[in-house]
């Protein structure tokens, strides 16, 4: 059996039973990478040598009986997370040679938990995109259909898990960048509450929306990984000093007596009929678990996309100002004076989608436009947040499709940014409200493309999120087929 196709909890059993070593697992992962990576291209860089060194250390720990939560588990990191001494590109040419002198807090926590890092995964440049097609380092393909995109921006992290090129991975979600690729690749992906997982060392796209979360093969692995990465960090001002519960305790509690809200605004024209059908089926499963599904309203839903595409680019335009060629990263050698150096560096260093968003954001913050755009968007954002607060007075969780369509073809939407932006229509509101969300596989289309259902709960209710996702996963018993690579 290929160890790389197993889950964290399955591997932990094997390790405990002495049936597998960390080295065995890492070897199987890299064998798989050697076999499929040229087709999938989930990674920007691999950490093969280090991984085997870490695996042998993990094996020493295993022999000594020192088992930590992720001892010997191969984990991939989105290349947006700073890794000390290891190149971190954020999918951009402008950081092609950037080697951080520090680890992201999440990277530290995973290390302490015994995880073995496989490599840095591909992503849309600066996490700006929904298909992983804007990466400077080439596109990533969907393991279920190599002609299709894996979703984005954390497409590499999703594809790596789906293709068994790692056991679990870490991504970041600013408007759906974990949940959308998780749905399109047929795996589990969670965006925790804003402030739950430290952003320190996460290269910022939109600071008030960015949140780190896990990609896993099932909900149990999601709970295990969340136990490791969640928690207060004094290095981040927006980190929330709250205790983290043991998420594994929520895994088999059931949802009898729960009320689950189905927002009517999410069943819009343009949803793929197969997604629509899978949602109906999922509602049936939830009701079968003893929960009541009710129609709810999130009245400001129609403004989410507009609000997001003002706030996120505005913050990005400022966050990306530091890439000026002065201190690190790419610098154009053609500039004869300062302004020219700036212009040439940024013109050559950033791709078109990043430039588009910097320009939108710069415009939205400009004097004379600030009130009409950024300020207004912030006010509407407060209303969107209130929609959810009102909704959670009536229900325990909210359920929606994760995406309006299954994975689309490579190149299909690259020339039409608006169509591309629409692929995040169901996931963006979560980030604006700061609440947690999870995407869980809910079946396949007739063409064999995975689909996902999204659950949402109130702030810091990741436990309840795992509870409903786990109950659904067990009851839905989606066939555990693997992509036929």
């Amino acid at each position, binding site marked *: 059996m290929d160890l790389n196709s197993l889950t964290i909890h399955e591997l932990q059993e094997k390790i405990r039973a002495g049936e597998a070593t960390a080295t065995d697992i890492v070897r199987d992962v890299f064998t798989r990478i050697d076999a499929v990576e040229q087709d999938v291209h989930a990674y920007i860089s691999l950490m093969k040598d280090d991984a085997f060194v870490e695996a042998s250390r993990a094996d020493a720990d295993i022999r000594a009986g020192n088992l930590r939560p992720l001892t010997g588990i191969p984990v991939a990191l989105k290349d*947006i*997370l*700073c890794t000390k001494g290891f190149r*971190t590109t*954020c999918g951009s040419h402008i*950081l092609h040679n*950037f080697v*951080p*002198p*520090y680890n*992201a807090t999440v990277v530290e926590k995973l290390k302490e938990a015994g995880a073995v890092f496989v490599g840095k995964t591909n992503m849309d440049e600066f996490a700006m995109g929904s298909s992983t097609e804007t990466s400077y380092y080439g596109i990533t393909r969907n393991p279920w259909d190599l002609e299709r995109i894996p979703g984005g921006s954390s497409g590499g992290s999703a594809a790596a898990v789906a293709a068994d090129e790692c056991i679990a991975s870490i991504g970041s979600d600013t408007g759906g960048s974990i949940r959308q690729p998780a749905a399109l690749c047929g795996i589990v992906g969670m965006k925790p509450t804003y402030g739950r997982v430290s*952003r*320190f*060392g*996460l*290269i*910022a796209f*939109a*600071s*008030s929306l960015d949140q780190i979360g896990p990609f896993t093969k099932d909900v149990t692995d999601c709970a295990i990984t969340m136990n490791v990465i969640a928690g207060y960090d*004094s*290095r*981040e*001002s*927006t980190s929330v000093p709250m205790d983290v519960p043991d998420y594994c305790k929520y895994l088999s509690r059931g949802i009898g007596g729960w009320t689950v809200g189905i927002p009517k605004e999410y069943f819009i024209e343009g949803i793929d009929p197969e997604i629509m059908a899978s949602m109906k089926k999922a509602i049936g499963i939830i009701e079968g678990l003893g929960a009541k599904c009710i129609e709810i309203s999130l009245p400001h839903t129609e403004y989410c996309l507009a609000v997001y595409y003002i706030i996120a680019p*505005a*913050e990005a*335009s*400022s966050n*990306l*100002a*530091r*890439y*000026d060629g*002065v*201190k*690190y990263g790419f610098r154009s050698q053609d500039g004869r004076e*300062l302004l020219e150096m*700036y212009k040439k560096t940024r013109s050559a260093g950033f791709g078109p989608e990043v430039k588009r968003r910097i320009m939108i954001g*710069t415009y939205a*913050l*400009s*004097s004379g436009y*600030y009130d009409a755009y*950024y300020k207004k968007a912030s006010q509407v954002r407060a209303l969107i947040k209130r929609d959810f607060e009102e909704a959670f007075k009536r229900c325990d969780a909210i359920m929606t499709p994760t995406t309006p369509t299954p994975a689309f073809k490579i190149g299909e939407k690259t020339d039409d940014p608006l169509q591309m932006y629409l692929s995040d229509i169901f996931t963006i509101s979560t980030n604006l409200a700061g609440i947690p969300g999870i995407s869980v596989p809910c079946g396949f289309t007739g063409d064999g493309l995975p689909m996902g259902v999204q659950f949402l709960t109130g702030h810091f209710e990741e436990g309840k999120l795992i509870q409903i996702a786990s109950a659904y996963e067990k009851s839905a018993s989606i066939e555990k087929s693997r992509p036929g690579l």
Partner: protein
Amino acid sequence: MEYEPVIGLEVHAQLLTDAKIFCSCSTRFGAEPNSHTCPICMGMPGVLPVLNRKVVEYTMKMALATHCRINGACNFARKNYFYPDLPKGYQISQYADPLSEHGYVEIEINGGKKRIGITRIHMEEDAGKLLHDEHNPLSYVDLNRTGVPLIEIVSEPDMRSAEEAAAYLRRLHEILVYLEICDGNMEEGSFRCDANVSLRPKGEETFGTRAELKNMNSFRNVQRALEYEIKRQQYILEGGQVVVQETRLWDDSQGVTHSMRGKEEAHDYRYFPDPDLVPIMIGDTWIEEVGKSLPELPLEKRERLIIEYEISPYDAGVLTSSRALADYFEEVARLSGKPKIAGNWVMGDVLRFLNEDKRDIKNCPILPGSLAEMILLIEGGAISGKMAKEIIEDMYKTGKEPREIIETKGLVQITDEEALKKAIEEVLAANPAQVEQYRGGREKLFGYFVGQVMKETKGKANPALVNELLKKMLAAS
């Protein structure tokens, strides 16, 4: 037409915290370039700022000392612009919601008092420094100063002359140094000032077009630059032309201002609330706590000294020019019980010695107790004022106690009446002609006799006693 200048000042003061505002790097001045830096103040990808609480506390001190209202909630905003000394491409500052607003300070001008309004006091981070190679077209970036905490104090356009502006600036400087939240060093840039100045016909309500002046690194330069700029604008207006809104740099060596950039080149800083920092909530308890920790401020101290020690307003001004000097004076006054005399010694000899050596009162070799003792020795008649002048110089040079110096130098005053009578008799005997003249009505000669007696006694005679005895002995016969 008579024109009236309208002046407003923006002051930046570096706070004396040990650590920078958003990271734990040292704020110490003068270290090796880029040695006080970390990924946070260097603006590396993915790092985040965490506010140093001391910065809020220090800013609150200045706000309270200048009668500002402290806002219950304030936040940080990003000021976006590109420059190599600004590694993030934005400066974290405060914009729409500053820590404090609506205050004032009082200045003394033409013998009267005037209130200068303070629009706001807010917190921000300092930028780094560029060092330009003199021989090559190269510039180097030193980020040691990046992230050093600053407060910006913005005045209302309440000043009407360069002199008023200088007085306001001195007042702010004095308060900051009194509060011990800024070292006030203008040369090292811990206290910096930009000025907005415009002219309008006297009696007119609306403001004229203003110029912003930069690069004035001393009180004197601020006053000179403003005086120059007022004249320049007056010349333009009198010539029937219009003043252009622009930023101008003061050139110290030429004594003129030069245009740096015009209105159309002005930056659009695209301020917006910094999403990496949370709003700062300041409750009344915290404000009260900080209020209680404030020292007595210069103006209050001045007024108290005038009443308590019956000294002149001028003397009080000199003695309170720094907190340490005032403390020194009060200690001498208390120990000697002679505040006026104490004041004269402190302002006279002590300050003269210190100024000559460019030494701070905190490092004065004469301890307040020693000076008080010397004053008591004079009062008790053990030494004369003239002897004291010599003694205090030795005290300053050696740090020794007055008694010790008196003993080693044999400087004890002659208070023995018999000995003095003998000396006077000798003087009178040696100057019969003068005695004759004095007794004949030339009373001016009295001083001559005193001088002769002092000479005879090598200055050790108690002058009061000499006066008394001389009068008696000259009247006799």
